[in-house]
């Protein structure tokens, strides 16, 4: 399975004086089946990190590799869940999930079985033939997650996947994702600007600075989660009430607050 490695990655958008330093010297290693979240102020380049792993952008210098192989063009080994779902509006839920499997040239029977599993996993069975616009935002994002999961990717890249959802749906989806990654662990790179979300979901949290984005601090959540047995608690609000959770969250908050707000002159 997949590991992700950033090696002195720099990214400049544009050239010369107009060039914008988005990322500076990013060094990051994500182990197999590890869940790493990147938090940072908006515009700090956290999404750019994910887009480089996905193959949508190339680093200006440095290298990114998945499983030791340098990252090339986008592909199903690095499945992406987008903030705005990016489902094909003219395809039903089933057809959306099926496209990646058809691209893998799997036989129909095999595909049907995989789709059935994915639908069941994401509680979408009764919506298999619905079209995206007939579903709520939360449901649409479930489809997008199913579409990514069904590919059995080496790494799962999630770009603020719950950012476009309302608060209640968001909480449900966070709980679902925890359940999902427990049943079926993956290497996950998760981008978010919500500190709570990062602490609740991730094994490690990377805090990024304002532009040019650098990784300022790595916070180990997993050790504390295991020591304090967060996993035995069902509801997200009860986990968020724990002193150990609050302590971590406040620590990351302070780290982010030290980043001066953008000049707005």
């Amino acid at each position, binding site marked *: 399975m997949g590991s992700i490695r950033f090696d002195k990655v720099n990214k400049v958008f544009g050239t010369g004086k107009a060039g914008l330093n988005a990322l500076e010297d990013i060094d990051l290693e994500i182990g197999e089946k590890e869940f790493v979240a990147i938090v940072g102020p908006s515009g700090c380049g956290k999404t750019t990190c994910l887009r480089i792993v996905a193959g949508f952008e190339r680093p200006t210098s440095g290298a990114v590799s998945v499983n030791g192989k340098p990252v090339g063009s986008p592909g199903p080994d690095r499945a992406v869940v*987008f903030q705005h779902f*990016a*489902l094909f509006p*003219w395809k039903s839920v089933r057809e959306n999930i099926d*496209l990646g499997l058809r691209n*893998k040239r799997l036989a129909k029977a095999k595909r049907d079985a995989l789709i059935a599993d994915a639908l069941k996993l994401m509680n979408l069975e009764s919506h298999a033939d619905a079209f995206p616009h007939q579903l709520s935002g939360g449901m649409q994002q479930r489809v997008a997650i199913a579409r990514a999961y069904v590919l059995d990717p080496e790494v799962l890249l999630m770009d603020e996947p719950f950012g476009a959802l309302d608060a209640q749906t968001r909480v449900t989806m966070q709980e679902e994702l925890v359940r999902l990654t427990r049943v079926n662990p993956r290497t996950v790179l998760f981008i978010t600007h919500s500190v709570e979300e990062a602490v609740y979901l991730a094994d490690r949290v990377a805090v990024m600075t304002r532009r040019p984005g650098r990784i300022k601090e790595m916070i180990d959540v997993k050790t504390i989660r295991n020591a304090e047995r967060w996993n035995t608690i069902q509801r997200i609000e009860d986990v968020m009430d724990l002193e150990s959770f609050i302590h971590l969250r406040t620590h990351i908050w302070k780290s982010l607050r030290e980043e001066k707000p953008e000049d707005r002159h």
Partner: protein
Amino acid sequence: MIDQPLKLRETIAYGLIGLGLFLGIWTLLSVSGWIPRQFLPAPLDVITRFVALLTTPFAGATLPQHLLSSFQRYLCGMLLAAIVGIPLGLLMGRFRLLDDILSPIFEGLRFIAPIAWVPFAALWFGTGIGGPVMIIFAGAFPPCLINSYRGARFVDPHLVEASQMLGTGHLRAIVEVLLPASVPSIVAGLRVAAGLGWQSLVGAELIVAASGVGFMMVQAQANVSTPTVMAGMIAIGIAGMLIDVLLRHGEAMIRRRRGL
């Protein structure tokens, strides 16, 4: 900016008032003798002529027969324009190289009025079906190409990224992502193409055909039968409107399906 929408009944009433005024002034002008009848036939003469043409042949055929042969040419030309224009537009929207190669030629050609192709159309394809079809093509091709190009060019970039991430090959990405994403734009283009194609058709028939509504009108002009010319114009207008209504329904249906 437009005023508040009216109730359907009011809309119809105002439409009828407009039509009534138009016909009234027209009748007044021709019946009063201010304009000689050969110059401007009275509405009643035109309607009588129109009804007569439904069954009595003129210039070798009745009006429905002329319309039918016009429609055949029209469908051929439209089909050809769509078959060539839509895939080419999608490819140009997808591959910048193709766009760079073809755009300058196309930008020059599209400002040549379809009627300007008449001499070459007659020379290359004759006056049967080929010549007029080429002129319809010249009218209908640009909107087909431009709109599918725009559709493909401005497709939601996240959908393109999603299809790449899923490992979709070039051909499948064009057929299953680019084409359906461009459908609303393509259908809007087809509507424009249908209008321009229909206008070009009648223009072409005025010059290079041996049947069709346009041909009937030229023959009528030669015989100084102004009511026949008018009747032809009315037939063209009504047929054009019907084509547009049909396509508009198609467009609305597609938008409903997409939940737009």
